[in-house]
């Protein structure tokens, strides 16, 4: 070994060091953790699976869709939050759309459109409101469920998310007639003015109109669960109090009273509903 130049010896030592440390931290460590975990916490280590009639139907920790083959909500089940990838565990993702993403690209001939985050929020609010029989109205949203956003030019104003021939959500802005948007026209140069409107305290809670970070959120807020309760009670012929009691049973509060936020686990709650029948 002495005859090898020093830099070669250093690199040979590095090769051996990587090999030895890989063996310890990359093979022994995960295997020992796995062995101990499988003995002490087998349920958690294998994904906190839940069964119905002996068949695995999912993980208590992972959200799933409660929709029919047509993609529509099954009214007898509590609905999960919106998801950026429909609760697919093979391609988890967040929307990553920014807080001022308010202008849609309207579909034009030869071009598919994209919906801004604001319009997605407005549309979700509207459909959740329809499903639960409450108002889906929100600040910065038009009544048909798109973002209430104007592009203001020196001599014209356009409601950019409302394609012609939709009637703009306000007739006039600063004395100018508001136009509907013509798909394909470029409004980028205009000043963006979102219009708040006079909605206070929307009936549909925040988690019902937003996609989570994981796209697998297993929980909904207590408010969203209670909003859905009358529909569940009606569909299943259960007393509303019974549904509220089930929500209560499946609500995880803050750990030690201050860690995290209260949340309702949707899959276990829906399983309990099936048993309550």
């Amino acid at each position, binding site marked *: 070994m002495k005859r090898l130049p020093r830099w070669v010896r*250093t690199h040979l*030592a*590095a090769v*051996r*060091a990587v090999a030895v440390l*890989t063996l*310890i*931290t*990359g*093979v022994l*460590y*995960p295997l020992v*953790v*796995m062995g101990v975990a*499988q003995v*002490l916490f087998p349920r*958690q*280590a*294998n994904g*906190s699976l839940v069964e*119905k009639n002996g068949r695995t*139907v*999912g993980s208590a920790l*992972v959200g799933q*869709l*409660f*929709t029919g*083959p047509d993609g529509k909500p099954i009214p007898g089940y509590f609905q999960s*939050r919106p998801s950026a990838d429909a609760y697919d*565990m*093979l*391609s*988890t993702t*967040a929307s*990553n759309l*920014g*807080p*001022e993403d308010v202008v849609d690209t309207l579909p034009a001939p030869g071009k598919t459109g994209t919906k801004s*985050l604001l319009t997605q*929020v407005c549309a979700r609010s509207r459909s959740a409101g329809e499903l639960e029989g409450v108002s889906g109205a929100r*600040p*910065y949203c038009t009544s048909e469920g798109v*973002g209430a956003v104007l592009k203001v030019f020196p001599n014209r104003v356009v409601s950019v998310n409302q394609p012609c021939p939709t009637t703009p959500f306000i007739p006039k802005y600063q004395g100018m007639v508001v136009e509907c948007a013509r798909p394909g026209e470029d409004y980028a140069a205009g000043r963006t003015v*979102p219009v708040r409107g006079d909605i206070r305290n929307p009936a549909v809670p*925040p*988690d019902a109109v*937003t996609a*989570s*970070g*994981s796209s*697998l*959120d297993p929980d909904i807020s207590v408010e969203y669960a209670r909003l859905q309760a009358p529909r569940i009670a009606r569909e299943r012929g259960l007393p509303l109090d019974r549904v509220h009691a089930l929500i209560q049973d499946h609500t995880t509060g*803050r*750990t030690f*009273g*201050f*860690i*995290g*936020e209260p*949340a309702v686990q949707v899959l276990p709650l829906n399983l309990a509903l099936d048993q309550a029948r």
Partner: protein
Amino acid sequence: MSQTAAGIIFIASLILAIALVHKPLGDYMARVYTGLRHNRVERLVYRLVGVRPDAEQRWGVYARSLLAFSLISILVVYGLQRLQDKLFLSLGFAPVPDHVAWNTAISFVTNTNWQAYSGESTMGHLVQMAGLAVQNFVSAAVGMAVAVALIRGFARRGSETVGNFWVDLVRGSLRILLPIAFVGALVLVAGGLVQNFTGPHEITTLTGGVQNLTGGPVAGQEAIKELGTNGGGFYNTNSSHPFENATTWTNWFEIFLILVIPFALPRAFGRMVGQLRQGYAIVAVMATLAVLSVVLLNVFELAGNATVPQAIGAAMEGKEVRFGASNSATFAAATTLTSTGAVNSFHDSFTPLGGMMTLLNMMLGEVAPGGVGAGLYGMLILAVITVFVAGLMVGRTPEYLGKRIGAREMKLASLYFLVTPVLVLTGTAVAMANEAGLAAMLNNGPHGFSEILYAFTSASNNNGSAFGGVTVNTPWYDVALGLCMVLGRFLPIIFVLALAGSLAAQKPVPASAGTLPTHRPQFVGLVVGVTIIVVALTFLPALALGPLAEGIH
């Protein structure tokens, strides 16, 4: 209790827990790095590696050993990814494309853990365990080794050597990271993280739909991912994924793991230089900046000042119900203040000013408290710069811990400090000036610019989090960000080791009436001021084009 009140207690409980742990852990780490005995396992490791553990190294030899180890690491992680279909536990995944594999290898070896890939559909279990998780350990141990070498520079008198890289590497990995990660992994499994070898398998959901449940050795990797301030997730959505962060309290525990070593290292520093109060001064600077940042981030996210959060009624896009806005903001602050880069919520959808705080945290240079080891050596460089600035004011040759900060030392400290701003600003400018760079934006307007700025800030500071809308698995970005990561990691390390060498060689000068005391609140305030002013001067123009333009109407 309101979310705000609960969020404040959440932060206070973390501070309390870290305050309780930092003394015993810091003292333990000091003993690990100063102890003369090698245990039986370590002696076997040194024999297998073929190094003499008692041979002290000059700084140049130390640096060459470190660089050799890192180079071989890059090659191994690259090879494992490229050959994964030929090896076992690949889950049937194809070889990782060359540019992604190169980027990922650099990313994990430099402790950045930037993810140009989607874990659940790209990386088999073998690559995750034997490639990525190994680097989670050893890249963290490398960071700590460099910090310890610099501490020895201050502690030693007229010494030609700064320690032995192989010993520091092995001890950091086996005596500090491994035991804590092991306990941490079991705690996380108890909370619901998975630890198995299953690949994706199809199940029928309650309503008859299909879901592919994924498995893997997640908990073990999650523990070291946080503890080593690495941040590369097993799954694409990182610590927001229920199998990486199952409950409200695993979230608390993961933040604790992120912060525990960086905040304990100043204690080890104080212990090793024989003046605990110097360690307290350093930790006070880190804590001041960190608390300021975590509070501001919470304020911005809870206020939700932007059009979409106002329409929603809370800044909940990209956040989980069980964490809520406040605990998500606290996690975001911890992960960007420490060069971790794990995320439990998506920074791209944060309010403009909340997103700016995550950027600013990284722009501080990852020093408050920074990554394991890297945070401490970064902060010590800032302390050196501060005594120099203070020395200029009164016209004295500056000293820190009895060591003269002369021309050579100042040159090295300045070079250290210039590396990341040059990489961040040049990289962003080049990306904004060409088609391949601009194509990556998901959002448009100022927010699109923020996505690019964030990418280069994150890579150059070895953080690894992203404004995730940016599309960076293209050859152009994989190469550009890979270069930022490798230069942003190893150039500063070389300057720090060179500084350690020249400090260790000095004999300390006795303190006199004119010596600037470096353990008093006055000095703490000075370092905080220098840090903020230097960062503000460097990055404010860039921030004005991005988050400030978006957030201030």
